[in-house]
């Protein structure tokens, strides 16, 4: 009889090519996603050393990070140039490198183009039980379909291109179990914000987090991708959710997913991956779903989470002296006073998008709140950025784009947009943004920008009222 194993251990064991005497393992990588920002130096490295890409068939490239989200084609259907010369050069590098090394490439104006972490699952390129890497920390996202997926640096991108493997130490395992049913207005984003608040920004360091429990199982694939996406915000390089019928139904028929008899064999294998009864995690955190409210961040670390009904905390309320210092710095940066009700915080900018929250379900949730309403006058800039061209087309078929534009929000082309301030979509210094993205770091959305992380429904509510708002009041 074999020892009971966790989902993580099963995937890890199935990918060990070789174990070194010091314990480091050579791990096979099934899928490599490549984008324009973290790959140019890796391709340059290959070129300098005369190496090739070992498995171009397992590699998929798509630009997303610094592509502007404004129109990409003129009226005649010709590509519009990218104004920023550095962004244009990075895009040109990817457009040259991908075909030169025989890598599948979804170009900037293809209907399938989008954020790499939206495109992977949507195309069925990301599959349960696979190892997936990308030069982007939100690769953790693909754990939502049960893939062991994690972000890597550019040296590792080059290593995977050249060898289709990585040298890794096994991680410790952490279970975050969310039991029960969430209340109305509480979404996958609120679940992961709440979890991050509970475990802290370093709570999962050195671990892979498996999200379990009835509240996780009840989520759609889109919701699971949102939860796993932010595993990294809790310090874990990867998140995992056991693949089940919900996952299989989502993946069946997608372009790169197995077909016919292969599909049956794949599903049988994926079903065997769930954590065995009696398998031990190194750490377990249990959360009652009923405790989770629509949530919002007040500071500059994703662990700085309060319920929307809460107030800005006083630095002195934290036990840890270094957290007291950090909280005081955060409040100064955010321009917030302790004791202020979160619902009294005015908002000038709204960003609905990013690899965390730009899938069709996210856009539907935001549209449901905003339908028949209009953005508040003090909201100067409000953009909705679908995660991919296919999400955009689906939303337009459902009339969601009209709901947003009728309400005074802008409807954009797919990309990373205002998540990270490396394309023209930025939040001005000193202004606040209710953002569905994943990071509220200092300067993340632009120098001096003040980010409040929220769900799509909560961002839509803030757009309507011009301040942070409990979406439940608008849903009533």
């Amino acid at each position, binding site marked *: 009889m074999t020892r009971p194993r966790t989902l993580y251990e099963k995937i890890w064991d199935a990918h060990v*090519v*070789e174990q*070194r005497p*010091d*314990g480091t393992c*050579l791990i*096979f990588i099934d899928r490599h996603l490549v984008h324009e920002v*973290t790959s*140019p*130096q890796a391709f*340059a490295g290959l070129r300098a*050393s005369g*190496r090739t890409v*070992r498995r171009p068939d397992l590699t*998929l490239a798509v630009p997303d*990070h610094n592509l502007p989200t404004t129109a990409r084609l003129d009226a005649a259907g010709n590509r519009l140039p990218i104004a*920023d010369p*550095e*962004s244009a*050069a990075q895009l040109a*590098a990817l457009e040259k490198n991908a075909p030169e090394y025989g890598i599948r490439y979804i170009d900037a104006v293809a209907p399938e183009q989008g954020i790499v972490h939206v495109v992977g699952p949507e195309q069925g390129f990301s*599959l349960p039980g*696979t190892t997936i890497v990308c*030069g*982007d*920390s939100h690769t953790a996202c693909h754990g939502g379909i049960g893939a062991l997926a*994690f*972000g*890597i*640096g*550019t*040296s590792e991108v080059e*290593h995977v291109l*050249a*060898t289709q*493997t990585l*040298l890794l*130490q096994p991680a410790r395992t952490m279970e975050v179990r969310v039991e029960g049913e969430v209340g109305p207005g509480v979404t996958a984003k609120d679940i992961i914000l709440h979890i991050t608040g509970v475990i802290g920004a*370093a709570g999962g*360091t050195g671990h892979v987090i498996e999200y379990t429990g009835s509240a996780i199982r009840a989520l759609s694939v889109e919701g699971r991708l949102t939860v796993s996406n932010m595993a990294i915000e809790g310090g874990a*390089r990867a998140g995992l959710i056991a693949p089940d019928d919900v996952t299989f139904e989502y993946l069946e028929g997608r372009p*790169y*997913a*197995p*077909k016919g008899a*292969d599909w049956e064999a*794949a599903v049988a*294998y994926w079903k065997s991956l769930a954590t065995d009864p009696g398998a031990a995690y190194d750490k377990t955190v249990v959360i009652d779903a009923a405790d989770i409210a629509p949530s919002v961040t007040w500071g500059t*670390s994703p662990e700085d989470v309060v319920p929307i009904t809460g107030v800005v905390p006083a630095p002195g309320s934290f036990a840890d002296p270094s*957290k007291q*210092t*950090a909280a005081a710095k955060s409040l100064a940066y955010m321009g917030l006073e302790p004791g202020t009700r979160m619902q009294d915080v005015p908002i000038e900018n709204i960003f609905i998008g990013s690899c965390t929250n730009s899938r069709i379900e996210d856009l539907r949730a935001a549209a449901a709140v905003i339908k028949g309403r209009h953005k508040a006058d003090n909201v100067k800039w409000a953009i909705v950025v679908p995660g991919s061209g296919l999400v955009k087309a689906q939303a337009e078929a459902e009339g969601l784009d009209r709901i947003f534009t009728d309400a005074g929000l802008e409807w954009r082309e797919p990309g990373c947009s205002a998540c*990270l*301030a*490396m394309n023209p979509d930025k939040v001005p210094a000193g202004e606040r943004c209710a953002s569905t993205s994943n*990071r509220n*770091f*200092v*300067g*993340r959305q632009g120098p001096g920008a003040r980010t409040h992380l929220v769900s799509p429904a909560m961002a839509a509510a803030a757009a309507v009222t011009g301040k942070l708002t409990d979406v439940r009041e608008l849903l009533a």
Partner: protein
Amino acid sequence: MTPLDKVEGRAIPFGLKNVDTDVIIPAHWLKTTTREGMGRGAFEAIRKDPDNLFDSAEYKGAPILIAGDNFGCGSSREHAAWALGDLGIRVVIAPSYSDIFSGNAVKNGILPVVLPQTAIDRLMEVAATDPVFVDLEHQTVTTQFQDRFTFEIDPFRKMCLLEGLDEISLTEKSDAAIGAYEQKLDADRPWMRPAA
């Protein structure tokens, strides 16, 4: 990669916790196709303050950085390691690091030393006026005041740093094992190849 064994010099008593890679190097510095020159963008927001530590006469070019918990959290951008390296930093000392950052650091010849907060507090004190000595071979951090802290490091990472090893060359020695794995994967789970 430049091998690393002993590093001595001034240590920047930075000390903050949860320092993310957006703080170490903001995203607009990532719009480049080379690894060079990142030091100019390192800690950009902090260095707008003319009295910042990094540009002070005392700490400019210091080879050691002392930080708080969870250093390098957030984005996987290796540009953070390139930026530190370009500033002249060869060693970071902190109670903990994000997993991705510490890996990126080692691949760029930067040693991430893990020490408990009490040791960090003491080194912050020393760093205010005096140099700090780091010895990777013996896994120690010492000062001229008889302080001696030992640290743990993964033996593989230690070897890579001491020898300035190129991991790709090392992995290429396992070419046959990778090929055998690929063959077995195709036989056992042929559906793992992308369908289209």
